[in-house]
Structure formats: structure tokens, C-alpha cells
């Protein structure tokens, strides 16, 4: 239990730090970096609901992420930003539902492979046959940001605060979900799906619900990324995007609320900082991954947990 509290405290500290950073410093570069972390963090937090909690490895989350981006790009000019953002969430959930209808027919590794194949099919369609809507591989530039309540969110700082608001709401909802009976049921499904079904859980429906919620998170974060960048392209739908969110979640520590965000932050900061010091950052990142796999079996969050336990032991 104290583990949970410790995590939450660090989490709160990080979010607070994110809010303080732009106030302290005038740098728009760091603003941009933290904005990215918030968006990908939200994506990863949603991803971990199925990956860390329910034990389902989706390799097709890029599909929902990109679809959210396209939904916003296509709908925001007509219907306004917030409605479009809502539709992005719904689109993510609906697409997740659709994928799950196919993918949940199989389990384990085959579920992962099927989500990968389906998402990649969507990628190919979006970049070729659907180019009339998606702009093909060129994507759609000029994705809007909101101007509402008299605030111009084209200003990066204002948009940053908007992102924080969405992020905090998203994480708060997820925090409740994870400790709710629903979240516990997902954990039960991961721990032992045969038993979970036997004591009366509708395992497939639980998986489907979790997948849809996770899809909604992906949709929203994809929409926010499109808006941050003023741009959306099929790259967001590509399997390597699914790979990225998986890698970040693993790096941070799956199965924790905090881990995925930490993973995203470390990944992005590392990429940013390394690429400024050396042109070989790419390889260094690879070495970091390898070392993390070998020496940090539970990700960075696992490291925190260990430190927390040592701290607790010492203070007793």
C-alpha cells in the first residue's frame, strides 16, 4: 500500500514540476518537449491499461492513435475543436471495438500479431487507397488548435496548459479505473483468466471494454499530437508507433500508473539531450535499452519501488 502512495507522490511531483517549468523558464523548447511527454504519456497510460493491467499486448495501438489524429484534423475545422476531440476519443474506442471483434478471437501472442496485422492494413489503406481523405503519405498539414473562452491556444504556452488539463484529467480517471473493481477484475484476468471466468467474470467483455477505453486514450492523445504539430500523417498509424509506445511503457515499467509516463519522459528527454550532445544518440539509446532489459527487470518504476522499499526498511 505504501508503494502505491509513493508512486502517486512521485507522479504528483512530476506533474507539478511540469507545470512549474514553463513558469520558471522562458524556453519554448522545453515547453515543446514537455508537451510531447504529456501527450505520449497519456497514450502510454492508456496503453498500460490493457498491457500492464489486463496482460494483453496490443501491437496495433497506432491505429487508434492515428485515427484520433485524423478525426481531429478532418472534423475540427467544421465542428470545432472540443467536439472533434470527443469524436477522436470515440473513434479510438470504436476502432478498438472493431479490432477486438477480430483480434479477441485468438489469444496471447496471436492476439498481438493480429492487432499488428490489422493496424498495418489500416496504415496501408490510409497511405494509399484512402488518400482522398488522409492526404496519403503526405498527410494533412495545418491541423488546428482551439480558440475558445477567449484564449488563443495557438500560443504554445496556452496550449501547454490545455494539455496539462487533459493529461491530469486522463491520469486521474485512469487512477480511479485502476483501483476500481473494474481494474481489479482486469488484474484477475491477467493473473488467471480461466479462474476469473470461473468465478463469474465475463472475461471477453472485460478485455473488450479495457481495449476500448485504451483505444479512447490513444485517440485523444493522437488528436492532441496532431494539434501540437499542426500535422497528421500515416506515420502515426505505422507499426513502429505501436512499437514506440510499447518500448516506452516497458522502459518505464508496465503495470503501474506512473511507469509509462516515466518511460515516456526518459525516452523523450534522453533522445532530446543525447541528440544535442552527440550524433550517435541513436546507438546510445539502443545500449540503454539493452542495459535496462538486463538490469531493470521491472523498468524504471521498478527501480523506484526498490528504492522505496529500501527507504522504508531504513526508516523502520
Amino acid at each position, binding site marked *: 500500500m505504501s508503494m502505491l502512495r509513493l508512486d502517486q507522490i512521485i507522479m504528483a511531483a512530476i506533474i507539478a514540476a511540469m507545470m512549474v517549468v514553463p513558469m520558471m523558464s522562458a524556453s519554448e523548447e522545453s515547453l515543446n518537449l514537455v508537451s510531447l511527454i504529456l501527450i505520449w504519456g497519456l497514450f502510454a497510460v492508456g496503453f498500460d491499461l490493457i498491457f500492464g493491467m489486463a496482460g494483453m499486448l496490443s501491437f496495433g495501438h497506432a491505429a487508434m492513435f492515428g485515427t484520433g489524429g485524423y478525426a481531429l484534423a478532418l472534423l475540427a475545422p467544421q465542428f470545432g475543436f472540443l467536439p472533434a476531440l470527443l469524436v477522436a476519443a470515440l473513434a479510438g474506442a470504436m476502432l478498438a471495438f472493431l479490432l477486438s471483434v477480430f483480434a479477441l478471437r485468438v489469444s496471447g501472442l496471436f492476439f498481438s500479431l493480429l492487432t499488428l496485422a490489422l493496424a498495418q492494413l489500416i496504415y496501408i489503406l490510409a497511405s494509399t487507397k484512402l488518400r482522398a481523405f488522409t492526404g496519403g503519405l503526405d498527410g494533412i498539414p495545418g491541423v488546428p488548435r482551439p480558440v475558445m473562452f477567449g484564449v488563443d491556444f495557438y500560443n504554445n504556452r496556452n496550449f501547454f496548459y490545455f494539455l496539462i488539463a487533459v493529461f491530469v484529467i486522463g491520469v486521474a480517471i485512469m487512477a480511479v479505473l485502476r483501483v*476500481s*473493481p*473494474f481494474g*481489479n477484475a482486469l488484474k484477475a484476468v491477467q493473473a488467471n483468466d480461466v479462474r*476469473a471466468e*470461473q*468465478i463469474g467474470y465475463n472475461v471477453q467483455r472485460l478485455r473488450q471494454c479495457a481495449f476500448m477505453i485504451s483505444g479512447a486514450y490513444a485517440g485523444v492523445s493522437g488528436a492532441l499530437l496532431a494539434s501540437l504539430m499542426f500535422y497528421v500523417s500515416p506515420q502515426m498509424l505505422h507499426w513502429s508507433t505501436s512499437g514506440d509506445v510499447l518500448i516506452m511503457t516497458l522502459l518505464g515499467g508496465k503495470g503501474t500508473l506512473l511507469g509509462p509516463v516515466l518511460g515516456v519522459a526518459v525516452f523523450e528527454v534522453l533522445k532530446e539531450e543525447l541528440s544535442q550532445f552527440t550524433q550517435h544518440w541513436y546507438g546510445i539509446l539502443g545500449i540503454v535499452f539493452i542495459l535496462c532489459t538486463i538490469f531493470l527487470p521491472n523498468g524504471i518504476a521498478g527501480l523506484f519501488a526498490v528504492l522505496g522499499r529500501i527507504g522504508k526498511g531504513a526508516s523502520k
Partner: protein
Amino acid sequence: MSMSTGISLQCENILVAFGGLKAVAGVSRSFESGRIYGLIGPNGAGKTTLMNALSGHATLSAGKVILNGRDITKLSVHARTRAGLGRSFQITKVFSGMTVLENLKLAAFAHLYRVQPFWMPAGRFADVRQSAEKVLEQIGLGRLAHAPAENLSHGDQRALEVGLALLSDPSVLLLDEPLAGVGHERLEQAIELIRRIVAGRTVLLIEHNMDVVMQISDEIVVMVQGQLLASGSPAEIKANPAVRAAYLGNDE
């Protein structure tokens, strides 16, 4: 839960085939409410497969399962549980990574809520806590409430298995070797426990320990090569030469 006598579980010509092998080869039999049935038979006789067929873990090639007058043959596992069929497993399937109480609460949530609440922390549900704690005491694991389930001894894990099944308040309870791994010194106690907690429910129980089976069961059903060989009171079964030949071995 039906307390009156009457048929609570009925098998109609159940057939389970894996490829060419008939693991359960046409079993028909009714089980009366409130009685404990011991299901015995040599290894590979199809006892566990029969249990799987009843609980929905094995697909029937033919036949029907009727629970309290309702045909549940087509129902999924969780729907059967909701219909009042509980079971424990031969190979322990408790939720590892969680405490004993958390295990029980999971079962309580599954029983008490059709749609799992997602809007507030699980800790705030007093009703769930109460039913979980009640069963916790019943199965005698009160002292271990906050121990991680995977650290329990074999026997205690078995008890937890039964507890999980119990939380769905089943009218029919299938127990697959609930006493395996229970130490000698605690065996009597464990038998007593089972008798007590299943009171009023129909129980079908697989157990290899003959003494235990004879002691605990109202009626014994003997299964050999996928079929029912005999049934009767423990005394009748002990005396049945066919059973002795098939199962107990006749060279003693």
C-alpha cells in the same frame, strides 16, 4: 439455492471427444439437491473431463447439462457460474500477486456486480468486504487474510480455491481434489470444514484418498474409461467386486 430434495444437476448422455479419444463416453446421471457425491475412478477415467464438461471448460460433442431445470449446455463458463454452478480446480488456480482477501473480494465482486463498478476504488465497497470476510472465516483462513495467495501452503490454497467457488453462492459445487496436499494432522478438520461450508449445496467431488471420500460422501459414483461403472453408498461401493477390480485392485 434449493434446499428441498429434488434434482439440481442432470447430465444427459454427455460425450466429450478429443480427436478420436472419447474422454467422457456418454454419461447420464442426475444429482439430487443437498447431497455430496464422491466421484472416483482410476487415473484417466475422465473424472476431471466430466467436471470440465459440466462447468463449461470442455466442449460437449453431444449431450446436455441441466442445472436446476435449466439447460445450460450452451452457456459460457461465467454464465454457468452466474446460474449457480461453482467449481474448484485440480491444479490450483488462485490469483497470484494478490492477498487471500483480495482473491476472495474478486470473487465477491464478480458475484455481486454484473457490470464491474469503475467509478470508485474497490476498497469502498462494504458489501463486498463483508461477504469476502464471511467466507474467509468459513474457510478458516482468517489469520492469513493479508498473506499473498501464492505463499500459502498447498492445503491452504485448496481451501482458498473452495472459498472462491463458494462466493458465487452456488447451488451446485464441483470440487476437484479439494483436499490434496492437506496434511494428515489436519485432514479430519478439513473434512469437517468442507462438510460444514457446503451444507445445503449439491456437491460433486473428486478425491483420490479413499478414506476421505468414503467419509465425506453421501453417495459414491465410480467412473471408468469415460463411463459410469457403479454408484451407491460408500459401503456398497466398498463391497462392489466390479469396482474393486477396476479401481482398488483385487490383489489385496
